[in-house]
Structure formats: C-alpha cells, structure tokens
C-alpha cells in the first residue's frame, strides 16, 4: 500500500510537470549589411522626387524621422547621356525634369559610401481626366463623384486617388466622400474611393487622380504580402520586389491630374 501511495504521489507530481511549458528566447537574425533604400517618382510636371534611406538590422530601433546622411548625391540619367542632378533637403531630393514622355531614364544614388542604380524606366504620356460628374448634399452630408478617363492603349495602367481639403470657410463638420473612377471605354473595372471626412472643416476638396507605373504596384503588393500581423508566426514570406539594383525601393513614374470641388 505504501508503494502504491508513493507511486500515485509521484504520478500526481509528474502530471503537473508534464504540462506544456512555453519559453521564449531572443532569436538573433544575421544582418545582410547596410543598403540604400530609394523611393523615386518620375513625372513631367516639373519635378521628379526621391526619398533616400538606409536599411538596418531587424532588431534595431526604427526612428520615424530618419537621421540625415552625411553626404548624398543623386542623378537622373537619360539614355542619350544627359544627366540631371537632385538637390537634397535631408533625405528628400527634387530635380527639374526636362525630359519628355516616351524617354527612358535611370536613377543613380550615392550616400555615405553606398551606391545604387535603378532599372530603366520609361516616362509615359500623362493620363488626363476626360470629365467629372459630382453631386453634393449638405443635408445628407455626402459628396458623390464620378471621374472619367481614357486609359492609354497597350499599357497596363495602375491608378490611384488622393483627396486634399482646403479650408477657407467652416461649413462641413462631417462628410462622406465617395468617388468612382471610370474608364471612358468601360474596359477597366471602376475604382472606388470611399472616405469618411470626420469632424473636419473644409469647403474645398482637391481630388488628385494618379496614373502610376507598375513598379509602384509591384513594390506595395510585395510589401502587403510580407506584412503579416505583428505577433503572428513568421510564416511563408516572399522576397521584396525592387527595381533598385543593389538596394531596395522603387523608381517609378507617377503623373497626376487634378479636380477641384468647391462646395
């Protein structure tokens, strides 16, 4: 009986010790080394903009306002040998573009001993808004708008919209803004922007209609694919898309047409 009691006692103790015990250890990931991260938009509206950063080890602190480079240079190179320099304010640069639609460009950046070049990007013809229809109701507090455009033939287009408010008088406190971009030939699926403008004062809206090259889409799609919720298991990811050789980011074209709505 004594032996049986002892065995049952041991069994009871072990029942608890056999339960799952989770332990967490810091997992060190080797860093591949610093690389330049470049985001460049090429347009023919007078300026071509780029932002330049550096990659960092995964465990390092990420500061929202990155530190400026000690030295940074960038040039826009056209295939006929012309080059246009960028002028930097901290990590953001602008250059005057004298090129025209249909011309091919590459971007070269040097900063703190690191250098990258982009793949060649062709500047397309600007996609313009054909016409705009909109309704506005202060009673129901909504703006509904349809933007029509003609997509260029032979080019896969990526389109985006942005809304800026301009305050001159306070007449709107809460507003539903809905815009639909429709290709004039109905070839493309309508794209909708549905936004609640909440407790903001504005009486003028500037709606920007962007036509983007595939580089922007490819980059942000791969960012989306890699952006699992934080705290989730590290699961199957994909390499980040880039056309910056030796670095990360993209060099793309982005032309914009604008509609202003005066309430």
């Amino acid at each position, binding site marked *: 009986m004594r032996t049986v009691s002892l065995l049952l006692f041991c*069994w009871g103790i*072990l029942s608890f*010790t056999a339960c799952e*015990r989770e332990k967490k250890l810091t997992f060190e990931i080797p860093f591949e080394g610093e690389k330049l991260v470049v985001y460049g938009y090429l347009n023919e509206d007078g300026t071509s903009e780029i932002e330049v950063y550096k990659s960092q*080890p995964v*465990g390092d602190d*990420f500061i929202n306002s990155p530190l400026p480079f000690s030295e940074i240079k960038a040039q826009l190179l056209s295939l006929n040998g012309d080059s246009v320099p960028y002028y930097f304010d901290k990590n953001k640069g602008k250059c005057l573009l004298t090129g025209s639609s249909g011309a091919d460009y590459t971007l070269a950046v040097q900063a703190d001993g690191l250098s990258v070049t982009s793949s060649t990007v062709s500047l397309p013809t600007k996609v313009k808004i054909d016409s705009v229809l909109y309704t506005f109701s202060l009673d129901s507090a909504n703006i509904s708008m349809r933007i029509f455009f003609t997509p260029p033939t032979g080019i896969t287009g990526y389109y985006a919209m942005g809304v800026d408010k301009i305050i001159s008088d306070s007449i709107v406190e809460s507003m539903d803004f809905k815009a639909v971009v429709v290709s004039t030939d109905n070839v493309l699926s309508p794209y909708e922007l549905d936004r609640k403008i909440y407790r903001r004062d504005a009486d003028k809206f500037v709606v920007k209609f962007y036509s983007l090259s595939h580089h922007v889409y490819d980059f942000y799609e791969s960012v989306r694919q890699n952006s699992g919720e934080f705290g989730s298991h*590290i699961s199957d990811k*994909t390499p*980040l898309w880039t056309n910056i050789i030796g670095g990360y980011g993209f060099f793309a074209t982005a032309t914009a047409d604008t509609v202003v709505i005066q309430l």
Partner: protein
Amino acid sequence: MRKIRYLWSVFLVVVFVIKINAQYQLTGYVQDQKSDEALIGANIYVDATQNGTSTNEYGYFSLELGEGAIEIRVSYLGYKTKVYNLDITTDTVLKILLVKENLLNEIVVKEKRSQKFQEGKVSLPIGLLSQIPTIASESDIFKSLSMFPGISTGREGTSSLFVRGGTPDENLILLDGIPVYNATHLGGYFSVINSDAIKTIDVYKGNFPARFGGRLSSVIDIQTKEGNRNETHGKIGLGVLTSNMMLEGPVSKRASYFVSGRASYFGLINIFTDKEKVDYYFDYWLYDFNGKLNFDLKKGKLFFSAYMGNDVGVSYSNDTYKTQSNLSDEKIKWGSITLSSRYILPVTPKLFAKFLIGYSHYHSLFRLKSLTEEYFINDTLLTLATYENNSFVKDEFVQSNWDYVLNSKNHVKFGSSYTIHHFVAGSIDTISNFNGHSALASRELSMYLEDKYKLSRQIKLNIGARYSIFYTNNNRFSRIEPRFSLRYEPSKKLNFSASYSVSRQYVHLLSSNGFGFPNNIWVPPTDKISPQDATQYSIGSGWQVSANYLVGIESYYKKMTHLIDYRSGIDPDEPPIFDWQNIVTKDGVGTAYGVESIMEKRNGKMTGFISYTLSWSFRQFKDLNQGLVFPHSYDRRHDFSVLGMYTLTSHWLLSANWIFQTGTAVSLPIASIPVPGHQYSIEVYGGRNSGRMPNYHRLDVGVEYKKRTRKNNEFKIKASIYNLYNRQNASFLLTGQEPFFDANYNQIGTRKSIEQVSMFSLIPSLSLSYKF
C-alpha cells in the same frame, strides 16, 4: 474504356504467357496458439525446393507443391518454428498454430526480427512502441516511425509525418484498410491511433504496390488486433496525460471481440470550476475508441471494426477594459470516425477474396461567439458576433480485393474500389453578414492489378498498375499509375533493389501550419486545380553483416507536379473556405531526393539502430518567391537518430534515443526598411524559406520495470525523461514590436524583436499499466 481494355490485356498476358504447371495446393491460416490471433507475414518455406510464401493480413497462405512427401517449415518472429512432414497427394488445408518462445527466453527473443532489409518499407515492431521514451510516456506510432530514415516529424512535439520530402496530407493512413483523414490529437502532439489496438504497422515510403493509391508520399498500413478467441484479457494504463484500457476475449466459440479506449483528463482540472464566477476558463478533452468483432463463418470470416477519435476544446473569457467589456466563448472540435465490415474467404485453394464496405468521416469545427459591451454616458452599445467554420469530408466505399496464386512463381493481386467522397463546408460570420454552405459529392473508381513474380531464386519482380477515375462537379480526371520493383539477392545476406512508381492524389488539403488544428480543410480537384502527381525512382541495398547486424542504404528521387500552396500574403489561419481556389497558387513542382541509411542490431540484450538521412526537398511555383525554386518547409538536410534498448534482467529494460535534425526552413528577414505611408518599418525577406531555425536535437531516456504475478498477469511501470539535457528547441518564431518614446513621451519610433518559442523542456513522466 480503352484504358480498361488495356488493363485487362495486361492481366491476360500475365495469366497466359506464364507456363502453368498445375500441381497441388497447400492452403491455410497461421495463428497464435494461445489467442488464435492471425499472424501476418508468417513464413511457410519448403527447404527442398527453396520455395515459400508468407501469410497475408488475415494470416492466410496458399502454396503450390508437387506430389509426394515434403517437409515444410513455418516460422514467425518471436514464435517457435514448426516443421510439418506432409505427403501431398491432393489439395491440403492446414490450420497452423504457433507457440510463442518460452517465457525465460522471451526477453531476448521478443525483438527477434527478420534479417532481410526491405527497401522503401518500414515494418515497425510493435514491441518498440512501448519502449521508446516519449513525451509523458505516451506510446506514439508516428514519433516512433520518425526515427526511421526518410520519415520525420514537423516542429518540436508534433506528430505529423513528412515522408521523403512530402507533406502530411500526402500520407495515406489506413486503419484496417479504411483511410483516416486526421492523424493527430492535441494539435499534433499525439497520433490518433491507440497503440494498444495495433497488431502491425507497415509504412511504404516508395515502390508502393499497385493495390495502394490516392496519396503521393507514403502508405501507413495499420492492422488492428482481432481479439483473443480463447480467453478474456485486458489492460489498464495510467499515464500523466491520458489513461487507457483494453479488453479482448471470445464471444462464442466462433467469435471474438477487441475494444480499446483512451481519454485525457486535462478537463478534470476544471471539474470544480464555476464558469459563471471566473474571468477565464479553458477545458480540453481528447478521446479515442477502437472496437472490433470477428466471426468465423462456415466459409470465410466476417469482421466489423469501428474507430472514433475526437478533440474538443472550449474556452471562455470575460475582459473588461475602461468603457468596454468583452465576453467570448470559443469552441474547437475535430475528429474522425471510421466504420467497416469485411468478409474474407478462400474461394478456391488458389483464390482468396476480400470484400470491404467502409465509411470514413473527418470533421472540424471552430466557433467563436463574442459579446462586446461599450458604455457611453447615456447609452450602452451591444455587439454580438458569431464566427463559425465547419467542415467535413466523408467517404463511403466498397472494395473487392483478390489474391490469386497462379503458380509457384506468380502471385497475382487484383481488385477494384468505388468511393463516394462528400466535401462539405459551412461558414458563418455575423460581422460581415456572411452565412454560406457548400456541399460537393465526388466519385472515385479505381482498379489495380499486380503480380509478384519470382523470375529466379535470386530475382523477384513486382509489376503492377493502377487505374483511377475521379468525377467531381462535371469534371473528370483519370490516370494510369504504373508500379514496378525489382529485387536481386545474389546471396542470402545481400540484396539489391530498384523501383519506379507513379502515384496520383485527387484530394488536396488546405492546411495552415501543419499543427493539425481544425482549419485543415480537404477539397477536391476542380476545373482550375488539377490532381497532384508524383513519380519516384529508388535504388537500395541491404547487407546482413552478421547474425545480429543489418545495414541498409537507399537513395530516391521524387518529382511532384500540380502541387498547391497558399498565395503569399494570405493569412492561412483563417482560410476563406468558399473561394479557396483564389487563395491558392497552383501547378507547383516539387523535387525531393536523398540518401537514407540504417544500421540495426535486431537481436540480443542490446538492440536498436542508428539511422541517417541526407535529403533535399524543393518547391517551385510561378506565383511564389518570384518564380524561383525554394526549399520546402520540411527540407531537412541531415536527420540522424540513435535508438538503444538494453534488457538488464527479465524485469528491467533501459532505453534511450538521441535525435538530431537540421533546423526547419523558414523565411527570415535579412533587413528592415522604412516605407512611405507606413508608420512602422517593414522587413525584407531574402527568399522564401531561405533561413533556418536552430538545429534540433534532444536526448530521451526511459526505464521500464515489469513483473508478472502468480496468475501470470503483468504489472508495468515506465518512467521516462523527455529532453534530458533541456535543449530549448524552437517550435516556432514570433515577431513582436513595441514603441519607444522621447523624454516628453512622444513616440519617436518602434523596436522589433523576434523570439524563438520553445514548448518542451525537460519533461519527466511516469506511466503504470496492468495487463490481465
């Protein structure tokens, strides 16, 4: 129709091309003398002619002999060999009862095993199951199998099997011939089959005989016990996580039964908990049951068998934070049911028939109900949400299988099977106002023909083909799967082999992580998603070094096509079950190759083996990893196991095993970059599965004490320590991030970290059993 005619032509060629030299037929059953349990794989051998055969899964054999006096030798592992001197003048039927080796020698003899190396096949000795040290001293067939070359488990603690670069859904698990869709309990920690119920386990890693089909990577053929026909016996076992029982005995002179069951008692912790008074409550149960009834009829035998296994988890929480409270009630449940009825009979001395009617059902449920209360100054907002995913796959089938001993050189097997698969999925999401249900029935017809042909004393062939047709949703798929294997034995101690096999898998598994949780959903092929195919080549050699030592080496190359995987960016933990075709990427190609080796010491006081596998497994999808080839998640470059068991005395047994595996392939970030429009940095991944978790290794030890009582009952105590040197092996990795602030408490950035989660440190355990 043309394909059926083709198969029939092959059959006729096999039958008629071979010279028929009809003589007399010796047939019968080989059984255990004490229990009348059929002995599977017993050898019946004629020394004079060097001719022999072995019993099938029902203990039946059929051997062609010439007229006159002859001596036959009947042997089975762990049993005394019996010699019969017969005068064959007509067809003869024998009932052969073998006696176990005497008790004094049992300890040494019980591990005695065949000295022949079987390429592409592992026959797990049942005695090993209870002796290998495991977590909580729970005998586990899958963990035991994973120590053999070419077979590995997934992450730390899980039981899902990966065979030769395949995935767990590519393993056909047959329980008495019935496919079991779910193989694991407790999220993958235990296999669903209670080891007390098992009589034999054979795993085919390659050169699948044509009678098996429907999966790409392996066949795990489990036969359960029939029950003692002479005496009632039983066993009661008490472990730290589960308890089990087994009972077997005669129903009448011509019938027997076998039942076994197992249940966990995690739920007992909450038995006195009042759910209404606590903020958090968690309850979990797992249980399984095996039952079998066997009848000897005037001609033939009839079997009824049933299996049921379930996992049920319930959690409840009540959180209140500031002006909001949240009540959530969660339930997960998954499990399988199989039912079968089999009738076997020797139709003629040369023809043995097996008929089977079966039913297999796998279901999974995830249900979350939440009630959120938000308190405002004058009002309270109540939000009731229900999220439910419910799916099951159900098979109903009939089979007929025939064994025909054409002559002393040809043993032909043929048969057919008709299956109706039901795929049902339902989903409710009250937040997005979704309530959907889909049900699809598919039909599968298959037939096979194989011939075990003894070309000469040294050369044996197994040639066969399988043909299957699958109808689903107005789509029709079909394929011929040729199978071929050759074995050359230049001497009794040395053999070489080569094999080629094509296999097809119609059903796909949408699985999130290999943990075996209920978001595993089985789906049929469609007009967009093709069935998966595999072609495998292998060569191997076995050498009996001495009476106790055996060495085997094999290499294989496997190509898989039409594989599916989740698209990048899909959260696989919540698969939308209705538009699943849109969340997977198709037409993937898999390549797996490697070398497997094993050195076994099968007899003596010290037994065990050392196994080593060097392997590669890759995948390629057009839409994944920029179309580049990447390592499969369970690509294991090195997999090394050592198992040793030492019989100290007739009472004491010591055991130990050490396992080393290359770390699991994972996609690890190699840098972090800022992205315009994103508040946080994002990680840059070098390539899919381009990183590795740390290498996995651990040592387990065990000691077993057993004693027989005066009534010859057996009392056994088993103690084991899992992970003796407390290695922190990675189960998975987690990312985390936290904000950091300046002196004025303004957030100026974020800090990310990656943590390795280890779930099983040193775990001692004890189990007790009493066999009567």
